[in-house]
């Protein structure tokens, strides 16, 4: 087992714990409405417990490991973790896909939206070109959506 966690790995385990607790609370609510082991709330309740327990185990396991960002302030840790997770390339890729989906949703049309996506997306921009490409892309979609 590795003895170091990646930046943000410990925090992500807490996010999963939050999800587990959320499922558990919702499931308890369902189970209260129909309290029986064969009811529609039984399996979600079991899953909520599993999610919470597994997340806690991972938190405990992570607690024993060192972190690359331990000792820093929380805001610094969060920023390093976010940068580790969403590097500029990945953020641009997600943003492009989001804009593409929004353009399709707003009725820009598949042919037009896809052409623009391919035009901009075929070469991932460098850091300097990032804002320029994103604005170009948004403007292209805006014009298309407005025109249609």
């Amino acid at each position, binding site marked *: *087992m590795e003895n170091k966690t990646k930046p*943000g790995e410990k925090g992500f385990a807490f996010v*999963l714990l939050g*999800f587990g607790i959320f499922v558990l609370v919702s499931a308890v609510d369902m189970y209260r409405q129909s309290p029986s*082991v064969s009811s529609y709330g039984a399996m979600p309740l079991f899953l909520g417990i599993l999610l919470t327990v597994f997340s806690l185990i991972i938190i405990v396991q992570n607690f024993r490991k060192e972190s690359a960002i331990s000792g820093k302030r929380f805001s610094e840790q969060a920023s390093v973790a976010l940068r580790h997770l969403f*590097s500029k390339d*990945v953020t641009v890729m*997600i943003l492009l*896909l989001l804009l593409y*989906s929004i353009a399709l949703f707003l009725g820009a049309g598949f042919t037009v939206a896809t052409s623009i996506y391919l035009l901009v997306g075929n070469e991932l921009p460098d850091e300097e070109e990032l804002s320029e490409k994103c604005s170009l892309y948004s403007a292209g979609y805006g014009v298309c959506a407005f025109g249609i």
Partner: protein
Amino acid sequence: MGNLEFMLLPFQQPILILLIALGVFLGIYIGAIPGLSATMAISLLVSFTFSWETNSALAIMMGIHCGVVYGGSRSAILLNIPGAPAAVATGLDGYPLAKKGLAGEAIGISTVSSVIGGYIGVIALAFGAPLISGLALKFSPRDYLLLAFMGLMLVGSLGTKSMVKGFLSAAIGVTLGMVGMDPLSGTPRFTYGNVYLMAGIDYITAMIGLFGVSEVLQQVLDRDAPVVKQKIDRIVPSFKTVVKYLPLSIRSSIVGVLVGALPGAGGDLSALITYDQAKRTVKNPEVPFGEGAIEGLVAPESANNATIGGAFIPMLTLGIPGDAVTAVMLGALTIHGLKPGPMLMTDTPHLFYFIVMSFIIANLFLLIFGLTGVKIFTKIVEIPKGILFPSIIILSVVGSYAINNSLYDIFWMLGFGVLGYVLKRYDYPVAPAVLGIILANLIETNYRRAIILDRTVPKMLLGFFTNPISHFLLAIIVMMFVTQSTKYKAFRDARAAKRSEKSS
């Protein structure tokens, strides 16, 4: 006689043979491109063949399945980057061979081994499935519940760094599978008043996001990796060479079939097991293992293709997918009207025998395409990622839209893509999550049926120890759990260390 007629169906409609050939051809090249896995290819294809006639859709999917599993070996040999997880073991000896300038020979022998493995897998499927299907009729809801857990546990524990992370991923998948109307009473769950969520989360959309989009995002991180140019010479192996390695090929194929037939264990595991087995059993290889031993290519390549046939046995007869790829295939078959489960052989025998014949034809084309077109192949592997990624994204968008003709699904796909990427970034496997979404319905309905039949939880639990089938399944689960525990692994490693000390 009837079964033979079903098997001859592709010959009555030559378009089906063409589709199988096209599938194999595409599969080889998709499988060879690092980052494009079989699961991703098939999950995208499912949405494209959604409105096709059943036989045509099955034909191309079977072709792609065979092609992708084999295709991974090519990039493993030439670039030392396994195109698919099943080709990880192939690279161990394939790449050293390529470095010695023997890439052609390595590709040739891996093609022939894959075809031999593929045919042994088909034979096992043709004869094994009807037998298992008969046995599966005796399964109670409790046994299905155990089987589903077994599948989740295996996918969750094998091939992952942390067993808990695998199980957590599986639990997330099953939870997502619960969203929507309860299958037995119709009560909405986790919908929070949103009408769109009432129908539940479409697992094809989830699959495309978790496997396709997340993979693109992951690959973006190393988009600057240099493209390696390769030179290829003679690739068809001599008859003498094939005969020499035939016993090892057959032996590895049988192991591949058995591993594939276990719910949750796929081609990657069978390839690694047989590689290890070959390393232990082959006494005097011409070249040591790891430095370009032909045996190190023959064993994993035979096994991973034999696994396809093996993995189809539990998927078709029990409705439990053997691995992530068969999980996607299970979804595809359901869309096309097949009901994988014990009644498959009774209700739709024509489709079963058509699948068997498709595999037979696909393996023939695998031999043809595998031994030819290697020069074109090297060009395809060199496609710049700047062109490759947007193309995959567009295929993913079209695929997720095509399922329900809903633009909302594109946003779901994007959400699952980001989720999958984050999970992968922190070493949480995504395959258990997908399997969980698919198996959620099976788990829940069988759990509730079992509870209704046995009335209480203690009685249901007691049933695990009184019914012989449940007994057997429970024993397998316990064994799996024990062999995956860290204590057992430490004990095994210590024993292996002692042995090697003694032998040295």
